[in-house]
């Protein structure tokens, strides 16, 4: 129905899953939230997702695990990592693996919008 890009949010934190889609809608995107990587992989959204907002640390499959899995499946979805672990050492590693950006929670809407615009230009 819509031509708006679909942004998928994968995060085990409920606050994020509830708040981010509304903001993404305000930005003008479609949004869907998933509580785990496994749930996202099993969903129909996989093929329609234009950009993935992905938590790093999750029980079971982690964000980087999902990143690898998508590479294996040749699913080229731009990934913006979001993490509450403010660890500068993690960032370059994730970017080297092909992530567009890695945002530390809490991030501003400007940072988020910039990251999404970069991701969607790819």
């Amino acid at each position: 129905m819509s031509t708006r890009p679909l942004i998928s949010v994968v995060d085990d934190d409920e606050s994020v899953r509830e708040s981010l889609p509304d903001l993404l809608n305000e930005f003008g995107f479609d949004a869907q939230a998933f509580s785990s990587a496994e749930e996202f992989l099993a969903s129909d959204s996989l093929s329609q997702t234009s950009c993935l907002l992905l938590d790093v640390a999750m029980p079971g499959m982690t964000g980087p695990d999902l990143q690898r899995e998508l590479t294996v499946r040749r699913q080229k979805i731009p990934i913006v990592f979001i993490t509450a672990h403010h660890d500068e050492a993690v960032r370059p590693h994730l970017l080297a693996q092909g992530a567009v950006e890695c945002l530390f929670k809490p991030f501003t809407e400007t940072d988020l919008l910039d990251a999404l615009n970069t991701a969607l230009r790819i």
Partner: protein
Amino acid sequence: MMDFSDHHGHPDEMSRPKEAIIPEHDSVVDALPGLVWTALPDGQVDFVNHQWREYTGLSGDAWQMAIQPEDLPRLLECVRSSISSGNPCEAEVRMRRFDGEFRWFAVRANPIADASGTVVKCCGLNWDIEDRKRGEELLDLAQKAARAMAFDWYIQRQINTWSPEQEALYGLPPGTFDGTYESWKNLVHPDDWPGVVTSLKHAQETGNISAEYRVVWPDGSVHWLAANGLMFFDDQGRPFRMVGFTADVTRRKQIEEELRRARSELAHVARVMSLGALTASIAHEVNQPLSGIITNASTCMRMLEADPPNVEGARETVRRTIRDGHRASDVITRLRALFSKKNTATDVVELNQATREVIALTLSELQSNRVILKTELAGDLPLVSGDRIQLQQVILNLLRNASDAMSSVDDRPRQLLIRTEPDADDGVRLSVQDTGMGFELENMNKLFEAFYTTKKDGMGIGLSVSRSIIANHRGRLWASMNDGPGATFSFSIPCHETARTDPKRAARNG
């Protein structure tokens, strides 16, 4: 009359004492506990007693063979000077026993004058001082080995009886200590003098001297001395003599100081390490709701600025903002509960609650290690008494260890089970079971040693600290291997006194 005639009726008997002088004299000389001899000015020995012959196995003619060759000139000189000067003379020489063994003897030679007063010979007495010599050697050896020196100090008479070695301990040249209390005080480091005075007061009560203090040498260097000994008192009960040993313990003190510093550094490292890990957990816990708050507020702003404003949507985001605000506040409350308790070991602790708080703060860390946490906390767990923070540190440590032990596990779920339950003997038990790599049976005891670690980046102090904390709570901490993969670490501590006498519990148990 009878008596008289009896007495005088036997002329033989009358003459007997006169004749017996020589044999009796000989027998007395032979009975002396020493070797007796007489010598002429030319060094020729003209008499030796029985003891002498028996000891040496020689006759007097061959006397020089009985003296250790090195000591012979000394002895000859002694004899000569005694005869020429007419004064007694003393020497110490080694004498060969009949079986070839040399023993130390003290020799005292006295000149013997003839009727005209001319010294014609000298008479010597040698007595065995081997045991005393051995004792001296032993003392010397002991003093050297202990780097200690004997002192014998007559305090009131202020007589310097310090040996040169004793003076050397104070950095003084030989013979320069004047033996006064004041001089001694000046040698002791001013900061340590009050302690010395306390030790001396104690010695006046007990008679035992025991003090450790620094002395400042004339060259300004500082040395640690330890003095141990006895104090003797005069009739008025005043101390008049101190006998004992002084030892240089500078090296020992340096080692003790290094050890103390290492310990406090170790404690600091352990604290910083757990604090660092804890800070990361706290930051994570707080950042999550903060992130929600900011996102919701941003959304809210946009909804209100829209035309027309989306008031219902905005209201929902505000509701979520408030909820996330509370969530952040809860983290802080938990944190305060974890840290605000004072440092006593007498709190009444609800172990389940303490465990939940630790779990709440480590959950994200466990999750990032892909650990699946299960809890089985007993519903009717008795209270325990102890230091809540310390117990939580132990739980934190066990959880983190379990998580680390599973970091390389990929062929099975990384499952962590934390369980609390009443233990036998009125105790409470907490166990942490993992499905990690476990440990080698022979390393079971090493696990609890400081600096033993199986982790690449571990310091190996967590478990040893944990065990000492549990020991301080009169409990025990142990490890066991699971039937399946992994290990279980458990501790058991006695429950709180009132919990034990709780009638409800008693009834349940009955």
